[in-house]
Structure formats: C-alpha cells, structure tokens
C-alpha cells in the first residue's frame, strides 16, 4: 500500500498540484488509455515519481504532471508493443519453422527495417522543409530547446515557432503515413 498522507504540499508545489489536479489527470489518462484502471495506475505512478523527487520550483507544476504522466505512459506502451511483437514473432516462427534461434533475429530485423524506412522518410521531408521551419524543427525537436528558447534563438515569436512545428509535423505525418 502506498501511503498518500500526510503530504507536505505547502513545501512541495508538485505535490500540491497533484492534489489539485488528480481528477483531471485521471480523466486525461482514461481517454488516452481507454481504461479506468489503467488511468488510476498511471496517476498513482505519477504520485510515486514526484514523491521521490526533491522539492523544487517547477515553472508550471500542473502541466509538468501531465507531461510526466505522458512519459510514463509512452515508456509503458513501448514495452508493451515490443512484447506483443515478440509474441507474434514467436508464434510465426514456432508454427512455420520451429527454429528457436530465428525468433529474436526475425523480430529485430523487422523492427530495424520499419524504423529505417520511417527514418528515411522523415529525413526526406525535413530536407524539403522551408528554411525557417527546418531551423525550428532542428532547434526544438533535435536539439531539445523549448519553444521559447527556439523563438529567442531564431528571433521570432513563440507562435511562429509553433506554426513552424505544426507545418513540420503535418508534412512528416503525411509522408510517414500509416
């Protein structure tokens, strides 16, 4: 059992934001995960994560919690997807060749081929982007600057950066498809 009280929320803005936003977090992750139970689990994990962090001043603790939960969710989905693919490959190999060694190799090769093709398409689109959009993409997505930092570096407004990012993602999504 995880003990949720007492929370020292006066001194920890993240914990106080958690208390304030808990229901909103559950509602968000419910629609993302299509599961009440999954959402409750994930929001509990957010709590565990922030309880282990030292109290610090985070610019926008409410938004931070949603972002933290998103990262936990995506990590979990990656693991699940990998496991599902392994299972599928195992069945394929088991019923077709029964060759034990091929299991891991087949799965890794498929993953690599998919990833390689997707990467090639992304690179193609990025190279065709108009210069300002490509620069915004490079600074934000590749260098990891925030929108505000990207805007400062390019000497444009943050809303311009956000328009550039929308252009980039739309084009990449159209090309990568699926």
């Amino acid at each position: 059992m995880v003990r949720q009280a007492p929370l020292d929320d006066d001194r920890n803005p993240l914990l106080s934001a958690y208390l304030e936003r808990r229901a909103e977090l559950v509602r968000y992750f419910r629609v993302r995960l299509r599961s009440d139970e999954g959402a409750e689990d994930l929001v509990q994990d957010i709590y565990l994560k922030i309880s282990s962090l030292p109290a610090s001043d985070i610019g926008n603790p409410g938004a931070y919690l949603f972002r933290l939960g998103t990262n936990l969710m995506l990590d979990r989905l990656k693991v699940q997807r990998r496991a599902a693919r392994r299972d599928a490959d195992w069945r394929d190999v088991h019923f077709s060749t029964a060759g034990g060694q091929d299991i891991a190799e087949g799965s890794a090769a498929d993953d690599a081929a998919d990833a390689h093709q997707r990467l090639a398409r992304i690179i193609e689109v990025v190279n065709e982007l108009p210069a300002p959009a490509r620069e915004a993409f490079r600074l934000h997505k590749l260098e990891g600057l925030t929108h505000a930092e990207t805007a400062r570096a390019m000497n444009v407004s943050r809303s311009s950066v956000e328009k550039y990012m929308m252009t980039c993602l739309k084009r990449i999504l159209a090309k990568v498809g699926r």
Partner: protein
Amino acid sequence: VASLGRDDDNLTNPLKPWMSPPIDQKACGAPEDEAIGWLVRVQSDAATAQDWVALTAWLEISEAHAQAFARAEQLSGAIVDSAHEIAAATRRRTPDAQLGPPAVV
C-alpha cells in the same frame, strides 16, 4: 451584473476561448491536423494544466480524435528518439543559399 455571473458561466458554458483548437484555424475538420495543433500546444513551455484539460475534452469527443492524437504523439516521440540520426542526415543540407550569393567581385 453580467460580469457577476462569470462563475455561473464557468459551470454552464465550458467552452472557453482557451478551449478552442490552437493557432491554425484552417486545420478545423481534419482530426489529424487538429491533433497536431493540440500536440504542439501541450508540448509548448507555455502550456498550462488548463490546456491539458481542454485537450481531454477534445479527445473525448470521438475515437478518431483519440487515435489521431496518439499517432501524432507517437511520431513526435519517434523523431526525438532518432534525433541524432536525423540531425546527422539533415545537417549538411543546410543551404548556403541562405547566406546570400557568393561574393563575386
């Protein structure tokens, strides 16, 4: 008197200006485009919990919205995961043309 009714409005009319899809109004209609607008909005360092709540309401509207958002988010994650490779493959293409024509005297 109307301004005193704001709290009631908050309860009865959940559609606030910050709840409308962001920036690109031409995007309206295609869930894929709207999803990208929402993704960029919540990935902004200016994003607030209100933005996430507004996104929740948009996601709850339809399965198509939820799927489009998941796909955009996954793509964005794949880009970040491959940032080094993408940077390496696109760096050399930065056109010299941006710097203006070579000085021929």
